């Protein structure tokens, strides 16, 4: 039984790899389906904006007070807050939190949508009409999700740092000019390049995994629920694992 579960997940991941290959091929060759990509960008990107704003805003609030607590404890002064907060947000938290939120917002809804299309036999109808689901349905969502994740990550980094700065100004009596000056010493453009690379990779891997679970979905409403659960968990684990690998690579290179 245990092996059966592993087997199912491995088969689905293999399908995800195949989807990835097809998507990259389509990106190179076309058709690019620009109008559908624009539509999906509105749904995925603008649709996720409120949630990401709220979540990262609160993260910024928490981060400042946590780091201040630690700094006060370790070095018994709080002048290091800007550098530490900025580094932690730009390198890690400003990327991981939006990516995990994108998993549960975009990944889950992609799986639920495609899985309910599958169990109501709409995918078979597509096949009958000789419409390629990967090219027509998945590709625009993949492209939109990748671009949207990068943009939302940059937005969330900005929001987190601004909120962290406001917390530092009101609670720990920093001067905002002084805060940004200290921040600039600790963050350079390489950090932003790393952030964009990381978020692009996260945004790229979420849709193929989600859609692979949906295409393997079987058996009524229960199947849709099962597929969505599996997709969210696998995407979360994929994001965490890739985060570790990319962090290790970047900290070795830079």
């Amino acid at each position, binding site marked *: 039984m245990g092996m059966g579960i592993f087997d199912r997940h491995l088969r689905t991941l293999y399908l995800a790899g195949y989807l990835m290959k097809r998507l990259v091929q389509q990106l190179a060759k076309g058709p690019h389906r620009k109008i559908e990509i624009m539509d999906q960008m509105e749904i995925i990107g603008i649709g996720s904006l409120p*949630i990401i704003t709220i979540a990262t805003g609160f993260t910024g609030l928490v981060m400042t007070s946590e780091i201040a607590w630690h700094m006060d404890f370790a070095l018994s002064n709080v002048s290091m807050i800007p550098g530490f907060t900025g580094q932690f947000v730009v390198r890690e938290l400003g990327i991981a939190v939006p990516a995990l939120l994108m998993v549960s917002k975009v990944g889950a809804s992609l799986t639920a949508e495609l899985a*309910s299309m599958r169990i109501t036999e709409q995918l078979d109808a597509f096949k009958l009409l000789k419409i390629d689901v990967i090219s027509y349905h998945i590709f625009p969502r993949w492209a939109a999700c990748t671009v949207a994740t990068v943009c939302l990550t940059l937005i969330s980094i900005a929001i987190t740092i601004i909120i962290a700065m406001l917390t530092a100004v009101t609670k720990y009596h920093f001067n905002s000019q002084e805060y940004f000056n200290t921040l600039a010493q600790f963050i350079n453009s390489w950090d932003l390049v790393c952030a964009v690379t990381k978020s692009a990779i996260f945004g790229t891997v979420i849709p193929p995994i989600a859609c692979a679970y949906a295409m393997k979905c079987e058996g009524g*409403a*229960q199947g*849709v*629920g099962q597929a969505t659960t599996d997709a969210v*968990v696998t995407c979360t684990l994929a994001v*965490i694992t890739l985060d*570790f690998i990319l962090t290790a690579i970047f900290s070795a290179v830079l």
Partner: protein
Amino acid sequence: MNIESKVTSAMEGTTHTLKAGVNTSFAVFVKTLEELGGSWIFFMRIIRTFRKTSGYKEAIIQQIAEVSTRTIGTVIFAGIFVGAILVLQFDVMLRRFDAQTLLGGLNTSATIREIGPMIISFLLAGKIGAFTTAELANMRVTEQIDAVESLGVSPIQYLIIPRFFAIVFSSVVLLAIGLSVSVVGSILVAQSFSGMNMYQYISSIPRFAGAWTIFEGLVRSIIFSTIVANTSTYKGYTASGGARGVGKAVTEAAIYINVYIVVANFISSSLLEWIHDLVYWFISLAERFFF
């Protein structure tokens, strides 16, 4: 078309767009309030029913076994990686300050108090929360919950309460396991990736992490577990509309749990800081008077 009518039509267009924007944000605001109120009423219903009735021991134990065996592998896997990521990040930051001796303490404290509970709860939202929502939503759309009700049994009593308390209990245990694993994992990563001596790393832990850290992690775990349990059962119980409805319920449950967790993280952080200050103020007061 003269310039005045152009200006008038442009202003009308702008007003229309503004109105639409205000209406949409108002609708989002109202929907969020509805969600919050619905979850709260559902939570009170669960607590009230639980206090009035009894005899849940077996059902809860059965559910705990089911939930924890399904989730433990994933939690251990995620825990190791969360610890590992944090070690790498803190290592790079502390190297600039030449303060690598503090790595163990800082990392352990941050993992247990703050980031560990949050990220592992995100995972639990996907694993336990989405599964429970899918199960209950499936029962709802195939009218099994209505069947239970028509047999004269309260669905809250029969279906929700065992799941709710099982999720709360096993999430707290799973979070504790995940956090312990991530502490151990970060020791191994510090040894192998960032070239720290293991004993040096461990010796700096007690400087930062003590009883209060563990208490704080525990309080956070209980709050996050309650959020996961309540939101997932609520979204599953109120699902509607066939297979599509099940998918929608699962998606919404995952999102709402994540947003509630982030907000609760902030609120609990402020409250715990306040309680911490209060407790230590009392201790210092007691010391001054009694010793």
